[in-house]
């Protein structure tokens, strides 16, 4: 089979920092318009998503279902505003599409869904499923001779799901090197801080014990994100990148605040957020 993987246009770190700032504004606007959604985890993960699109992801808005494309699998699917904002920034969606987030019959569904939205590779909804899905694509790549890569973004709270560790075992057992996990370690889940809900302990040691190559990074530093992506691509994997992030990053009153896991800002808060993200 020929390798007809889509081209990708690499952007500079400075460009990506600007793009991520614009995405943060769109995230807050989407959640405000819908008066629902998950701003905290979207703001913690957006730099990672923008980094992937701008530094490595071979995927084309002209042909979003291209069989040779790399996959970005957002397993923590409630951070859908981050995906939609990034898809808009990289020309998969129009600005008007973002207005459909959580709206009746809108193409930007509450949780990312491949049937509804161009550029979305995975239909999630409940946590814990994305890595397994990525392994299926990775196995397919091996069987078909395609070199596409699965980039799977998990939450740290999501790592409480047993299926994550089933998949972690399977990836190593089958020596799947064309899959990378990035854990958005923002320390907060729905009800409270992760350490209050179910302490995850040393995530690095856990992934290492399961046979993965593990690296830390600051999940808001585009240079570190770029370096970690390169490390993953040049390391015999599977690789897990633990991204230290801040929930609600960029909006002062949302930062590290469990109450903004799944809540829209009021009018006053929205104005303040827009000022801070200007």
């Amino acid at each position, binding site marked *: 089979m020929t390798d007809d993987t889509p081209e990708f246009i690499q952007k500079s770190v400075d460009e990506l920092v600007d793009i991520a700032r614009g995405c943060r504004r769109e995230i807050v606007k989407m959640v405000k318009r819908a008066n629902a959604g998950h701003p905290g985890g979207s703001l913690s993960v957006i730099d990672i998503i923008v980094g992937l699109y701008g530094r490595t992801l071979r995927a084309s808005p002209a042909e979003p279902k291209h*069989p040779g494309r790399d996959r970005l699998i957002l397993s923590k699917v409630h951070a859908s505003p981050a995906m939609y904002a990034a898809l808009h920034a990289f020309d998969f969606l129009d600005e008007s599409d973002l207005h459909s987030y959580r709206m009746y019959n809108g193409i930007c569904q509450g949780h990312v*869904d*491949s*049937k509804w939205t161009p550029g979305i*590779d*995975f*239909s*999630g*909804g*409940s946590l*814990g*499923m*994305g890595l*397994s*899905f*990525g*392994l*299926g*694509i*990775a*196995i*397919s*790549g091996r*069987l*078909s001779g395609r070199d596409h890569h*699965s980039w799977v973004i998990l939450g740290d709270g999501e790592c409480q799901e*047993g*299926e994550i560790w*089933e*998949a972690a*075992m*399977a990836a190593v*057992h*089958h020596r799947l090197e064309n899959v990378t996990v990035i854990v958005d370690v923002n320390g907060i889940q729905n009800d409270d801080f992760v350490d209050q809900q179910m302490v995850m302990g040393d995530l690095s040691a856990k992934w290492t014990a399961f046979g993965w190559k593990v690296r830390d990074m600051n999940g808001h530093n585009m240079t570190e994100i770029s370096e970690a992506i390169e490390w993953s691509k040049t390391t015999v994997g599977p690789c897990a990148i633990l991204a230290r992030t801040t929930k609600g990053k960029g909006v002062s009153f949302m930062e590290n605040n469990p109450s903004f896991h799944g809540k829209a800002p009021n009018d006053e808060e929205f104005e303040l957020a827009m000022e801070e993200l200007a």
Partner: protein
Amino acid sequence: MTGAASRDGYGAALLDLAEDDRVVVLEADLGKSTKSCLFRAEHPQRAFSMGIAEQNMMLVAAGLASTGLIPFASTFAIFTERGFEQVRNGIARPGLVAHICGSHGGIHTGTDGSSAQSIEDLGIYRTLPNMTVMHPCDASSTRALTKALVNYSSPSYTRTVRNKTREIYTDDEAANLEIGRFSVLTEGSDVAILACGVMVQEALDAADTLAGEGVHATVVDVHTLKPFDHDEMKRISENCGAVVTAEDHSIIGGLGGAVAESLTANHPAPLERVGVEDTYGMSGQPAELMEHYGLTANDIVDAAKTAIARRNV
């Protein structure tokens, strides 16, 4: 394939399908039981052990299907249910064409006891939009219907059974079966007996007994519970006016449920449901358990007479 179990038909079908290099087999440490081991032995590069981890297996199947490959994932029927929400959200909802096979379905599983005897699988998978649900009655039809899945555009769940049953079809007859279409085995106008799985042989025996008493039954092998053959159900209901279902499954939600839904919507008729009453199984030999739980030809005969009496009131 005389005296085989329907799971043998599944294993044979996978081998038949192996020449299609889109076919991939996933196992959860029960390949020797579901018979996917036959494929693994011949095509190890396309057979993947997922360990005792069914949730992961379901989403790996989804990922494979998303790339155009055709995954067949199997384990015991009861253990597919461990990954039910994965099937619901990861396979059926996005409509990814992955095929799940649950072996060892029903009380007929025998001595393993109630924890291994799924009596709810057909019911729960039937509630999922996009899912096709099948429970063939013998090895030949399981082989033919499983082979047909390779050209099918919906995800599916197929229940097979552990123990040997009578072969109802020749291979040539089985090759004519169609997913989603009733297979009418005998035609009579006094009562209709709709059965699936191991209960098809019991239904045929019941029809023989009834014929000896001058009661002529239509016997249908409902190998596909979903999509349900409403047109044929309506014709048969109009023709017979009294209906019995027979299944090695809870009387709630499975074949009895599907037939009740169809009758009430299209052509109501008295319905008697033979199946596992709202209870769990236990250990024992299949024949002992079928007797205990009221899943024999005699139970079907009694139910037919009741249905006919209700019609004639």
